[in-house]
């Protein structure tokens, strides 16, 4: 599909594990293990899954904040992992990242105005004289007041800092933004403001998002297509409505049923998964979910289910579907 802005093919990212008395490499964390998907221009692709399932690693490897172990990432047809330093630097403005933690992702010793404008200068995208103007413009867009420009990050609230993070990301007019749990650290009352801002900006700027979250309700609200990750692999990938109305993978089902709803005394059919997610350093053989799957069959313990397209644009990796 040529409208694909981003294509991820069989992406793998393993971290070496060091340990023992002498710190040698004793294994690998398979943080991302054979993940493929594509994102179309203008859409919001959601990536959900539990902590440690490899969402952030996927996002960072796509932007080459991490070096891949295997696979391919094509952004507008360019193989991101094949670029040299200069080329990569030149590509950076077109794809941006928004971090989960609005506190630690801003340098405490750099003023907001500088933090926002420095990239423009560093890349020579705008002459010095126009930078400030542009910064103010984008700040306004993100709901920040002009007088904020000379302040330091610690003078802002969490919600405002996340706005700054967003402003920084859109400053260079990117085509694509990876948003890594951008609202998880925020208070409920602020979350809504930021989610709305994401939606507004997308509309105005025709942005494409890879939206990472563990909060299914947020993902449902924002995303058009959603991938569900477990232990470094995609379990299911589907357009929003189909996924929420009719989840296919047992993991997706369990995930959906675990979300507490703000409706007291509502009796729901609930699937409480037993145990923890296994260590990605030592994933179970066969289907990775089989250790916790309520419907587990023998085949699940032996064979890795293929990640296959079960209907148009619906993918799932389960022997039972």
């Amino acid at each position: 599909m040529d409208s694909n802005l981003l294509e991820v093919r069989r992406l793998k990212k393993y971290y070496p594990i060091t340990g023992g008395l002498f710190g040698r490499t004793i294994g690998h964390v398979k943080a991302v293990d054979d993940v493929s998907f594509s994102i179309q221009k203008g859409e919001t692709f959601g990536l959900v899954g539990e902590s440690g399932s490899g969402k952030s690693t996927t996002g960072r490897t796509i932007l080459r904040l991490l070096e891949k172990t295997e696979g391919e990432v094509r952004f507008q047809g360019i193989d991101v992992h094949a670029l040299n330093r200069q080329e990569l630097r030149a590509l950076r403005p077109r794809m941006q990242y928004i971090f989960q933690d609005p506190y630690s992702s801003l340098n405490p010793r750099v003023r907001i105005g500088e933090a926002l404008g420095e990239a423009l200068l560093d890349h020579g995208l705008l002459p010095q004289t126009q930078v400030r103007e542009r910064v103010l413009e984008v700040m306004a867009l993100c709901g920040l007041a002009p007088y904020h420009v000379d302040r330091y990050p610690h003078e802002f609230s969490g919600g405002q800092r996340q706005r700054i993070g967003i402003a920084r990301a859109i400053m260079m007019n990117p085509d694509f933004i990876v948003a890594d749990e951008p609202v998880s650290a925020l208070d409920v009352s602020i979350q809504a403001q930021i989610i709305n801002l994401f939606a507004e900006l997308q509309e105005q700027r025709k942005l494409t998002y890879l939206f990472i979250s563990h909060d299914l309700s947020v993902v449902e609200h924002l995303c058009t297509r959603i991938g569900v990750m477990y232990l470094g692999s995609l379990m299911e990938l589907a357009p929003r409505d189909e996924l929420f109305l009719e989840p296919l993978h047992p993991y997706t089902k369990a995930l959906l049923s675990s979300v507490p709803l703000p409706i007291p005394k509502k009796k729901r059919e609930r699937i409480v998964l037993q145990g923890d997610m296994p260590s990605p350093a030592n994933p179970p053989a066969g289907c990775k979910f089989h250790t916790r799957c309520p419907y587990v069959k023998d085949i699940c313990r032996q064979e890795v289910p293929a990640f296959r397209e079960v209907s148009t644009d619906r993918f799932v990796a389960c022997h039972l579907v």
Partner: protein
Amino acid sequence: MNALVEIQNLSTYFKSEQGVVKAVDALELRVHEGETVCIVGESGCGKSAAAMSLMRLIPEAVGSIVSGEIWFAGRDLRKVSKEEMRKLRGNELAMIFQEPMSSLNPVLTIGEQIMEPIMEHQGLSKKAAQARAIELIELVGIPRAKEIAKSYPYELSGGMLQRIMIAIAISCNPRLLIADEPTTALDVTIQAQILDLLRKIKDEAQTAILFITHDLGVVAEMADHVVVMYAGKVVEVSPVVELFEEPKHPYTQGLLRSKPVLNQRRAKLYSIPGQVPNPTTLGESCYFHDRCDQCLDICRVKQPPLRDGGDGRKVACWLYEEESVRGQ
């Protein structure tokens, strides 16, 4: 009926370089035996401070309880001696914290950490305590208890650690269990497990639970009663069903409306404008007035009292006051 915990007019202030932070301001709270009371509110509204005041664990150097009474099982905890308080802690009053990983000592084994309060409060021998620890680990649903007892915190996952924290908390069969955001750092599937476990404990041991969270979904699932806090003050108290059906305080309403809910997609989320006020510069006004879309004139100059509506619900908002009172 007599409440197990009855807090009246409790205020806890912190000293900060900018001034006094009224972290908890005239708090009223009641927890009955076998009941779960949830405190909800945004970050910094004083939930933890309230819990820590109840445990008398506010570090002396930075803050102190300035007024109020904390009645626990017929005793005013503010008046008992330090040593007595220590003997209550971990014994009759137990607490679980938000971050299980950092709340356990990284250099002591799990078993040792569970044994400590048992040996301290129940005077069990080391051996007996060990056996009890293993029992407890099994009780909170962790297999291979013996091995786990010998391992160190970093070897376990967050969910398991939180269960260990629960095991420590219930080790001496406390009458009140305070859970300060016990699931916030956990995944939904693990959260479901922990919530299940807490419910089980509550049902089996009739333990009263003071549950602190900011997740309304969790509140709906766990609470019998809900206390909504804003900027150190209680703004609404209500049985859980009524609260969700008919929130009274504009802040509660805003909270409920701004949360995206599964399978209830809206085009645009409602959002409460502005943000939480600076706790050091609070004035005489209603703390919520500048974010409130139903703000009255009086809201800007006077704080509303927490009014008992008679139906088991309390709210602190001028909207629910008689016109005559408002007019003053």
